[in-house]
């Protein structure tokens, strides 16, 4: 039985096989998964918002924001023994959970996805798979033995990324 490590909103965690990183109930957040296949090290960053500019540096939790979380996960993976040049990314989340009304609309999910992609591009990390956007909540399990991300959506068949 492998060890399941939950990664909450605004958190960043790195683990090795045979552990699994898991997130239940992803909404507009984006989970960035980075994986080093050779060393079987993987990390999740549970990004909540696109941009940290305007936040006081001393109050900033860098793992909440795409622009700071992506380089942080990348560097931490290196410190944990992953080969940075081997890292590949998978992206999940970025949904708009409630349909827009006259008084309320939000693109936060889309903005999160775009911001994570931009940060990945800056670091030249290839995106291997993604399941983003839409209006449905998602849960994922990241198997660090294989690098497979198992995705479930309420009322739908589980799929693998």
């Amino acid at each position, binding site marked *: 039985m492998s060890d399941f490590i939950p990664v909450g*909103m*605004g958190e960043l965690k790195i683990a090795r096989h045979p552990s699994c990183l898991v997130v239940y109930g992803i909404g*507009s*957040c984006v989970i960035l998964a980075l994986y080093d296949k050779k060393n079987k090290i993987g990390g999740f960053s549970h990004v909540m918002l696109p941009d940290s500019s305007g936040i006081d540096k001393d109050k900033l939790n860098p793992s909440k924001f795409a622009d700071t979380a992506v380089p942080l996960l990348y560097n931490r993976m290196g410190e944990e023994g992953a080969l940075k040049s081997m890292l590949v990314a998978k992206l999940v989340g970025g949904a708009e959970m409630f349909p827009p009304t006259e008084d*309320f609309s939000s693109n936060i999910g889309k903005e999160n996805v775009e911001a994570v992609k931009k940060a990945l591009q800056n670091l030249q990390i290839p995106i291997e798979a993604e399941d983003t956007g839409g209006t449905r909540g998602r849960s994922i399990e990241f198997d660090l033995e294989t690098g497979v991300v198992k995705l479930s959506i*309420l009322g739908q068949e589980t799929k693998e990324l």
Partner: protein
Amino acid sequence: MEDVTNLTRTQLDALREIGNIGSGNAASALAQFLNRKIDMAVPSAKILDFKEIPELVGGPAKSVMGIFLKVMGNISGRFLLLIPEHTSLRLLHTLIPGCDIDSPLNMGEMESSCMREVGNILAGAFLNALSTLTQTPMLNSLPSMAFDLSGSLINYVVADMVAVSDKVLMIETSFIEEEEDLRIHIFLLPDPDSLQKLLKSIGVA
């Protein structure tokens, strides 16, 4: 006041009383609507880590009906109803003659519209009581509804409220029908810049 962790005991007690008055009115509206006796749990006003909110409704992977409204006016914020699956089915079966769907995933336009109306009535009753109490007009937006994982719904509603702090002020209550546990959770999340106005309007600023 941007930092909710500085609230005093007296201020929290006053906010709890707001929850009491708002949800009392919402409970009567629901009782009338359903023609049943509805009891109300003692409301709470809490400062909590946003990650704890899904635990109040059974964990982030629990599927729930969410009805989301914006509170608009001089005092603004967000109003969220989280309704467990079996409560939403009971409401639909009671309110729509001949409705026999077995999962909220199979809701059609009629059922969705009915649930949004439930949200509208509860939010309207809650905010009416608050407007009277605070002498500040507060209106609710049109309701928006989704049936999904509680973690996903909450994540979407609070994301931009917790950019700096992880803490939110939440006034929470639930309704219980006398014979069956038909819970509806009501959450009121005042916008950070409205909190001071809210406290002032009830004389505890």
